[in-house]
């Protein structure tokens, strides 16, 4: 008895929704980043689930690229947080309003 693919897709959708809630409501920059990583991971789960359903390994290769891009994004984003923290002593995104208006 194998698990239907739609269960995996639903789980991925739930993880994505949780990540979205986190990214929209948290104010700490690091927490927002963690939520974005969660959303990326949910998308990866969807890709691998569809790769299994289609019996095609292209999905797994796309996951490989998504992981590389996520690593680059985390490195640059955290460096920016360090730069902002030097100047403002906070990474609360509500107080990073330099470019808001």
């Amino acid at each position, binding site marked *: 008895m194998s698990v239907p693919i*739609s269960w995996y897709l639903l789980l991925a959708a739930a993880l994505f929704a949780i990540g979205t*809630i986190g990214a929209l409501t948290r104010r700490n920059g690091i927490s927002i980043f963690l939520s974005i990583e*969660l959303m990326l991971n949910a998308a990866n789960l969807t890709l*691998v689930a569809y*790769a299994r359903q289609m019996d095609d*390994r292209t999905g797994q290769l796309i996951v490989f690229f998504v992981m590389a891009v996520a690593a680059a994004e985390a490195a640059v984003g955290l460096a920016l947080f360090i730069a902002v923290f*030097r100047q403002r002593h906070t*990474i609360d995104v509500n107080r990073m309003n330099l470019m808001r208006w």
Partner: protein
Amino acid sequence: METLIFALFAALALGSSIVVVTHKSPIYATLSLVLTLFAVAALFVLLGAPFVGALQILVYAGAIVVLFLFVIMLLNVQKEETAHGSRGPQLWTAIVGAVVFLGMMGLVFWRSGSPAVPPLTAESVSLKALARELFSTYLLPFEIVGLLLLVAVIGATVAARRPDALDRIGEGGEPEYLSGDEPRTDPLKSLPDPHRPSVAEPAYKEATS
């Protein structure tokens, strides 16, 4: 049996991801993210993608999360400040949006039924076949991703360096970032560092004045 393993890791992933977005302390949120990533890696293996599962543990749980932990410790981020503003409306809007999204996805999957899953073959989990496709069909994207990582490393180094690291070498004068109305002390410099001259007595000022 497979259903049992799926249920176990799905519950683990859901529970720890909820902790990721609700915990006040970034350290615990990050450690909880590790748990989520491990659970999703187990699901990858269950889906017949052991290479992606191993990559998930190596790259995500091994490298990215360690980067997060280092930055959190470097910045000494305290718990989220709750002094200003209420986030009630924001929270409820986000939750309603997420529930609507989840309901729509559930409806789509429920209506579309579940087609039979093709059986796993040795060919479909073969690492050799995966590598052959990666280095033939997807060779150009692979190279571009390598370039992207190089650019990211250089960009991160430039963005995170000390702002006065280059000003010291130049003609002197106050570094630009000190002249604004920003706080004048660098929190990362507050730790005593015997190898670096303190900001209070820059050597270059005497040389140029």
